[in-house]
């Protein structure tokens, strides 16, 4: 069993070599597979998003979360501290025909991120889903309730410490 596509640099930070793409609003940018990603932390997140909105990214295509609990040693450019959660936002510019991904680090102890509702109202449902699945709260969100799970559900299912459940099957003839 061997690894497919293992032509990546082996060092953790070699991908962010100095000749990489220029940073945006003080946030480092990486590029892979022709897809650009901006890495932000919470303090710079809202300023970055406002800047990108003014830059012509008219549409927020999606917001989702990732829980890096069991995969801590991921590649991140220098200057970005890895946290447990990430909020991943896909932006799209119709005028520039460009896509951009924003990955925002969210600490486990205080998982609160500013909502993008005022910039892109379409982020509302996506943020609700992220809250529902990961327990990441979005401050200033108009209606931060569960969207897919029932209201009285306990826990946030897509967290890595939320084990997939097994329903025990009791066969009639089996010894108790």
């Amino acid at each position, binding site marked *: *069993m*061997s*690894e*497919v*596509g*293992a*032509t*990546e640099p082996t060092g953790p930070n070699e991908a962010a070599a100095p000749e990489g793409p220029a940073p945006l609003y003080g946030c480092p940018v990486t590029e*892979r*597979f022709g*897809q650009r*990603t901006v890495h932000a932390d919470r303090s710079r997140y809202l300023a970055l998003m406002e800047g990108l909105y003014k830059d012509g990214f*008219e*549409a*927020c*295509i*999606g917001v*989702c979360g*990732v*829980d890096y609990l*069991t*995969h801590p040693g*991921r*590649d991140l450019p220098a200057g970005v501290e890895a946290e447990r959660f990430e909020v*991943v936002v*896909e932006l799209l510019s*119709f005028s520039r*025909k460009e*896509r951009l*991904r924003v990955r925002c680090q969210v600490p486990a102890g205080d998982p609160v991120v500013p909502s993008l*509702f*005022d910039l*892109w*109202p*379409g*982020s*509302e*449902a*996506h943020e609700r*889903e992220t809250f529902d*699945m990961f327990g990441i709260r979005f401050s200033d969100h*108009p*209606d931060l*309730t*569960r*969207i*897919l*799970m*029932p*209201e*009285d559900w306990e826990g946030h*299912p*897509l967290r890595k410490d939320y084990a*997939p459940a097994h329903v025990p099957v009791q066969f009639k003839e089996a010894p108790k």
Partner: protein
Amino acid sequence: MRRPAAPSRQEDALTDLLKAKTSEGAQEMGARENTTARELRSEIGGVLRLPEGVSLDPDDINYEAPDDETMILNLGPSHPSTHGVLRVMVEIRGEQVLRTKPVIGYLHTGMEKTGEELMYQQGATNVTRMDYLSPFFNELAYCLSVEKLAGIDVPERAGWIRMLMCELNRISSHLLWLATNGADLGALNMLVYGWRDRELLLSFFEKVTGLRMNHNYFRPGGVAADIPDGWRDDVAAICDTVLKRMDEYDNLLTGQPLLQNRMSGVGALDASTAVGLGLTGPLLRSTGVAYDVRRDFPYLYYDEVRFDVIVGTVGDCWDRFAIRFNEIRESVRIIRQVVKAMPNGDYRAQDKKVTPPPRNRINESMEALIHHFKLFTEGFRVAPGDAYVPVESPRGELGCYIVSDGTSRPYRLHVRAPSFANLQALAPMARGAFIPDVIACISSIDPVLGDVDR
């Protein structure tokens, strides 16, 4: 016979249980005094994207209706016009809709969590069940994403086969939409015709993939099997029949004033609202924004075929009807070019890391057996990283975001479902409309609840 004077305690408990089971609490639409101004604004479907320098004023929301003149009504979750288990709560005054809020999650099956448990080559089985009316697009987004992460080169023929199946799937999905849209608006004969024509495509899918739905036909590295002999005749017959039938439906539906009046001017959206809400697909194109992933961010071989992106001007249900109607014809145009251009060659990558050995090799070769066993017990590992690949599904942009941690299973699998995002358009579309218009609006969003809830 003496009847009990009061309901027993057991009955009380049962009633309480039922109450608890049927409430979604804060997810539901509440009374106005319990709703914050921001939430109210999004339920009313007011101007969501405020102009520069304007802040939200809570008193600015204009609702002339006192609470005793309005009522909150549930549409769904079990009603044919809601296309599945969509529950829409509307506040109405008389027949007029004041506020709308979709309540979803009744079909949530945790497919993103399941996807983390399945190996990369098993994942297509899982995602194909999301948007069950366009399964090929789910598989395509997933496979393109895995291939991008793993650096798998897909043979040319596999790419063209994928394009062929996707465009046929777009036709079948739009035909079903025509059928259900007709049914929702009272043109019940269209329901029968639409299902009849879709059958034509489903039987071709069955011939190719073995299944009518949930095909699991696209796999990372190519497709599961080559298209069967005689496919050119089948596809040509399908194209001819569909085009002929579309002309008939033009007579039946497009020229019919009753249907026109039900749709024109209903559920109109403007471009800035549509862009702000992150809408894609026919819903966005109806407002005049010519955005089509196939043209703007070409994948497969869409840059080698000629087709038009159909756009509307008014953004009402009638525009969306026309767009879907003509997209069927555009798909036929693409399919005919695909049939002409279909190259010979492999239908899946000859990369032994991802492609299992052929079945007859397993009987005679020990190495092939070991290879097969290793691949299906351990899978193939994918280098760490993340990738998001969008495709243009019949409903809009369907994207698959995969994070790999270097093992043989996705660390995180997120599907950006077009129906999920497009459903947000319901509140602005239904504002001020009558209840039957809300049905027309739901129908023209064309949500597939498997896609919404995943």
